[in-house]
């Protein structure tokens, strides 16, 4: 077959399709489609024959073939539309508003979801997860964190003591913060180090709408050469924006924790009033929410972990997870986290 013969065949396919499609009805249009445009249809067979032509010919004939194909497809669709084809008949007798089958649906606790989200967010910034025990030694919970014995800063952390002694004969305690994991991670470790540690903490406080003797914290720590407070701010900026949206703002104010120097309180623009204050019950009309404590790792802490504070520096931060979860899920009373009312948790 030469090129002229092929062209003629092609035009014949076009003509016979035209007559077939105009006579097609709803019940046989699919046959027409198969006969001309199917995988083994007339057009496909013709195009397959192109293999024996020269490259120049292939180019020209291929173009003609594809043009025809487009025309046929368009004509087919038009005819289908005329016939009302493609429209399924409405199924009868279904009340579509009846509920679907109740596949079991459980839920994750809001604290879990908050901690998982914060963890994921910070892992993307290169923080690895670290863990520590709940029953802790005085050394890790206080001493190595620059709380010497008889330091008044210990007063701020009402501590539960347990009837178990540690290796040095001191009463063990329930950790009052996740900061001991800083020491456990840093002590004798190879630097640099970038870790987070979510977990449960304990303080001997009476339970009310904003206090609980069991709660959760998220610790962050980065130690390297030349770490600065600007790095800290950048990290917190990134993670706060990830949680509350790109319009959330972060600001620092001076604060004190024995294990950092300088220390900062981290405030986030109010997620409810958008920092515009006015009459906002959440931020008490200040436009800002106190969300974290942070600062540069205190030289005494580095020393207690066997690292030279002249050579290494780092930042640390700690957040109360309940506070984040309350803002994220609109929970107003802290006790709700431990009541486990399924009428609430099933909404999650």
């Amino acid at each position, binding site marked *: 077959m030469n090129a002229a013969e092929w062209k003629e065949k092609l035009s014949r396919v076009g003509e016979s399709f035209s007559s077939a499609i105009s006579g097609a009805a709803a019940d046989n249009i699919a046959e027409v489609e198969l006969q001309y445009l199917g995988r083994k249809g007339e057009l496909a067979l013709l195009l397959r024959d192109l293999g024996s032509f020269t490259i120049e010919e292939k180019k020209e004939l291929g173009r003609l073939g594809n043009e025809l194909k487009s025309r046929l497809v368009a004509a087919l669709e038009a005819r289908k539309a005329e016939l009302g084809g493609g429209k399924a008949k409405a199924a009868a007798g279904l009340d579509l508003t009846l509920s679907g089958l109740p596949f079991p649906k459980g839920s994750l606790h809001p604290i879990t979801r908050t901690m998982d989200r914060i963890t994921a967010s910070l892992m993307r910034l290169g923080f690895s997860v670290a863990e520590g025990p709940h029953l802790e030694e005085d050394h890790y919970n206080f001493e190595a964190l620059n709380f010497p014995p008889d330091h008044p800063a210990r007063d701020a952390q009402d501590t539960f003591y347990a009837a178990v002694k540690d290796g040095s004969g001191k009463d063990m305690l329930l950790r009052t913060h996740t900061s001991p994991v800083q020491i456990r991670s840093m002590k004798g470790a190879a630097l640099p180090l970038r870790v987070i540690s979510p977990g449960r903490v304990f303080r001997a406080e009476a339970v009310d709408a904003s206090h609980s003797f069991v709660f959760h914290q998220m610790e962050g720590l980065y130690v390297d050469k030349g770490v600065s407070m600007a790095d800290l701010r950048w990290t917190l900026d990134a993670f706060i924006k990830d949680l509350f949206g790109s319009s959330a703002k972060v600001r620092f104010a001076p604060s004190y924790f024995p294990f950092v120097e300088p220390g900062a309180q981290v405030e986030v623009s109010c997620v409810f009033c958008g920092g515009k204050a006015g009459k906002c019950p959440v931020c008490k009309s200040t436009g800002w929410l106190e969300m974290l404590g942070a600062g540069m790792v205190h030289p005494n802490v580095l020393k207690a972990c066997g690292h030279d504070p002249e050579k290494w520096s780092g930042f640390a931060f700690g957040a109360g997870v309940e506070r984040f979860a309350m803002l994220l899920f609109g929970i107003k009373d802290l006790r709700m986290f431990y009541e486990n*009312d399924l009428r609430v948790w099933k909404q999650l």
Partner: protein
Amino acid sequence: MKILYSWLRDFIENPPPAEELPAKFARLGLGVESSGRSGAAFTGVVVGRIDKIDKHPNADKLSLVDVNDGSATMRVVCGAKNIAVGQMIPFARVGAVLAEGELKKAKIRGVESEGMICSAGELGLEGYDNSGILVLDPSAPLGADARTLFAPPDWVFELEITPNLAYCLSHYALARELCVFYGLKFKEPALPELPRAAGTVAPVAVTDPSLCPRYTAVVMRGLKGARTPDWMAERLRAMGSNPKGNLLIDVSNYVMYELGQPTHCFDLANLAGPEIKVRPAADGENMKALDGSELKLSAGTLVIADREKPVALAGVMGGFYSSVADTTDAILIESASFAQSAVRASSRKSGIKSESSYRFERGTDIELTMKAARRIAGLLLEAVPSARIEQVSDNFPEPPRLPVVTADPARINAILGTAMTDEKIFACLKAIQPGLSPEKPWKFTPPSYRRDIETVQDLAEEAARYNGYDLIPSASSMPVMPASSTPMAEAEAELRGRLAALGFSEVYNYDLVSLRDFRNCLLDETQAVELLNPLSSDYQYLRTSMLPGLLRTLRYNLNRGRTSVAVFETGTVYHRTKDGKKEDRVCAGLMYGPFPEEQHWRGGSEMSDFYHLKGVMQAVFGGRRGFRFEKPKHRPAFLQEGAALVMKLGAGEAGVLGLADPMAVINSDLKDTQVYYFEISLAALAESWKGSFRDRVPQVRAVSAFPAAWRDLSVLVDEKREWSELEKDLGSLPELARLDLIDVYKGKGVPEGQRSLTLRFTFSSMERTLTDADVSSRMEKALKKLEASFGAKLRG
């Protein structure tokens, strides 16, 4: 700590307006808990007199009172109990502006009230009895503006001062801080020159100067009957302190709030000797404290003693016998510096906390003792000009050595991530230490009150406070680092996700439980870790099992109308061991009631039982290598015998599941015992998570390209034969792709002691399509096996 604006103004030349102070405090790290107006900020209130009291016609607890306000008699509805005819009272006329706002005409229980008799709280006055109406002095002039009876309007700030800023715990110090950081002009208080040459009436001896590095003492005589002036009483009241009226008592508090130096006045007549000895107590020595309590002192507690006995717990509280009284004429004023740890130790041991111990524990300025002594002497002389000073002594053997910190501006910028100019940094350091020389390297010696400054990091914080923390940019030089989680955390997350997807809700219970929880759940409390200082007996132990908490959750929800509960919790359980304690992470849960829980119009819900929970565990562990159920060798604690299984992962035990011990359930105030419980060891799970991701994902087998063929077979088998036996035996049939048990039946048509099992065999070959004959011959084999091994009979 409370701070009065009017008092701050004593020490600042041109103070900023009160409204601007909260922001200024916050910028320096001084937490502002509250700020508000105080004193007589009200208007429209006059001195009135109660002329007549009648019962309210419609309310037992209310009275109708005739009040004469100097020009007319008004009828007022009043709810207070402490009213009496003839009392002078603050009377607010309609239109008065009180603490809560403007007073409007009101009808109370049907009777119109033409004003209000006010309580201290309604007037916004602090430091007065607020249990009823405020009864005024009988001499108060009728009809006068009530404001004239009280302190002028002021501002009170409640500050939260962190231990590092303890040097700000006074008006003087806070004013100084504002002046240093905001460039304001500081005013020192006026102090009298004390006669240095005065003699020695009461010699002072300090046994250990490291515990009491400085002891300043002033003896004054001729003070009998010294009364506290009104302005001082007013300030003390505004501070929330209760002035006694005796100046010798009140002046100590006043000077402490003013300068931050705690002092104490001893009645010289009751000091044996008279002499002062600062010494450690002997073991078992007694002291009667100021509040009358008998203290048994332990050895080493630092006390102030006279010749015979301890007369004060150093820095904490004075003693009973040497305290000043209205008859006191001569006093010894103690203004000392005590070691922080010594004061904290005696405060803790004695259980006494005071404003004084609070300040000493946080550290006081050693240079302040003489200033405070002079201030007290000055105030006493002001009140009693005839008083005589008989002794001024100052035991101060060795001034403390202050650190010298090299203030390298580059280092300060590196810590903060800032680019402050040298000038900016120097301005801050110079403000704190005016004596700092501009010559580099800057050798910074902190002033005596700034004992918190020891390192260049401390100076960096000062530079940031001085120039504002907003100066710290958000900019990162952090290199990328690979991040990883732990096997425990990853295993836990996957488990939680799967349980939630299967209909279980995650709950959080406290780690702390009661003795009753142990007893109810048949757990052994001797294995538990007990707290030394529990909040209450409800929270006395650390849990050894998740069961008590989960049963509590179940009960809580059933009591609130739920019929179906499927919950789980991941957490820590604690055990006492021979050499201390052991913590284990576990995931436990329970299932009770209809499953699925929601009623559906198509029906299909049934009560949860053993097989529901087993199915959940199958789904949770599905695809995990080496997972299987086994019968327990010993009955797992808190599960019912014969209704419990062990879950294994490889060689290790991963957990248990089964019917919760009915006794534990009943003990926990639950009626129905069909509670199914599981507990999974996260350590075992984490163990199986070790290694790479590839190590723990399942390896898939290819499936046949040829169609499979299936046949069902119903047999009668002795009901004692277990399914797993049959399953194992039939597993060896050639080309058996699946074996499913699709029906189990006992009852009509099945002989006693037997059960009918319907098995579905699915055969599939990798090489060909199996013929009918192939399948039939395999089914015959299967039946023969069942007959031979289990005495099974084909069911007709």
